[in-house]
């Protein structure tokens, strides 16, 4: 392997591991793309790098700039790594109900944390960041939910990598957060392998969010709407904590893949899909490693206890 100048050169080109022995259907292969191998530990390294480079190229970011971003963790951590290297000051609006590891990683990379109320979940963090960006027009607001560089990073990176490594892919499964992964990979497949079907999984986060005045406080990312949205997907399902945790543990125990809880949800979605197909090759995204979720007991504590407690934690 060549020696690189910076950890940022290690973003992307992630490996794919065959976990077909976990497939409920012997005619359907299941392959895991390990985005956890990125240097700051998640798929979000790709979009953080892309958003910062785009903002540097168009002059939005200048030496010493202050950045603001709402994040449940991974985007914030990836931005923090890059901002530290580039000398920018980063403020992350972070819901109070994320794991302490996420908070500590942000602090390790020197980001400033602005807490947002736990009861409002991720939507509350987005709202607070939007308000702060209006009050502080001098802060650079990359806004991952509406930044074209987010899906574009997957259109030009993740998508081509998957098709090159798995030319016989038939289905793709990933978590739906900003929708960047699904929209970007989907746009690439639409051009180069239009038979590939795109499936989204999501946690039932909205079930317990209390801080919404009404459902109009719900949130659909602009990226999702601009890049095809519902029409770009072939299915979307909720994966509940019990299934997410069960599959997270199976990935560790039966494939040696120490993945985060939302990756277990994606694996659960892939397994559910495999049951319904005659044959096929499913690629799903392991979006981060398990390190940031150890404090939840997800891997070792009594399963029923963790299922109850995880409902109040933002893990997507």
């Amino acid at each position, binding site marked *: 392997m060549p020696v690189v100048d910076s950890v940022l050169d290690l973003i992307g080109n992630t490996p794919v591991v065959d976990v077909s022995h976990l497939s409920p259907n012997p005619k359907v292969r299941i392959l895991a793309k390990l985005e956890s191998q990125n240097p700051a530990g998640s798929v979000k390294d790709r979009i953080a790098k892309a958003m910062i480079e785009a903002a540097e190229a168009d002059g939005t970011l200048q030496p010493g700039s202050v950045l603001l971003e709402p994040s449940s963790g991974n985007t914030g951590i990836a931005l923090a790594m890059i901002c530290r290297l580039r000398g920018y000051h980063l403020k992350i609006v972070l819901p109070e109900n994320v794991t302490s590891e996420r908070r500590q990683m942000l602090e390790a990379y020197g980001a400033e944390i602005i807490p947002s109320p736990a009861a409002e979940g*991720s939507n509350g963090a987005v709202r607070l960041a939007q308000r702060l960006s209006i009050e502080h027009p001098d802060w650079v607001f990359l806004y991952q939910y509406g930044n074209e560089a987010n899906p574009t990073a997957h259109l030009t990176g993740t998508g081509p990598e998957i098709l090159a490594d798995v030319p016989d892919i038939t289905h793709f499964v990933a978590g739906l957060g900003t929708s960047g992964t699904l929209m970007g990979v989907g746009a690439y497949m639409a051009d180069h392998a239009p038979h590939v079907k795109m499936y989204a999984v999501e946690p039932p986060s909205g079930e317990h969010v209390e801080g*919404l005045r009404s*459902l109009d406080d719900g949130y659909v990312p602009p990226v999702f709407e601009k890049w095809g949205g519902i029409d770009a997907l072939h299915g979307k399902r*909720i*994966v509940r904590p019990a299934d997410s945790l069960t599959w997270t543990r199976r990935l560790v125990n039966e494939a040696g893949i120490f993945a985060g809880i939302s990756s277990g949800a994606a694996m659960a979605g892939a397994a559910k899909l495999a049951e319904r197909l005659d044959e096929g090759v499913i690629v799903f995204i392991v979006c981060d490693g398990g390190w940031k979720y150890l404090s939840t007991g997800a891997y070792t504590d009594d399963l029923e206890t963790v299922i109850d407690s995880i409902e109040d934690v933002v893990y997507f």
Partner: protein
Amino acid sequence: MSNTVNVRIPTVLRPMAGGNSSVELAGETVGDVVSALVGVYPGLQENLVDDNGSVRKFVNVYVNDEDIRFLDKLDTTVADGDEVAILPAVAGG
């Protein structure tokens, strides 16, 4: 013959649904079930359905955890014992 399903109500809507976290209702389609739900709790009407009778943008409805936008939307049929979940759209990332 209509079928009985369990409808899960998210926290944000419970004040408009008598404080219930779930309600048993009958119907043959998701549309029937939603109509029955707002029949019992009229306060939910404007939160769930827009003027065109479609599910509102920031509302996701699921049958057995599948988003009905990828099934037959409000025409999606339900079977006895199915679970219908209503959730506000939430950001991630």
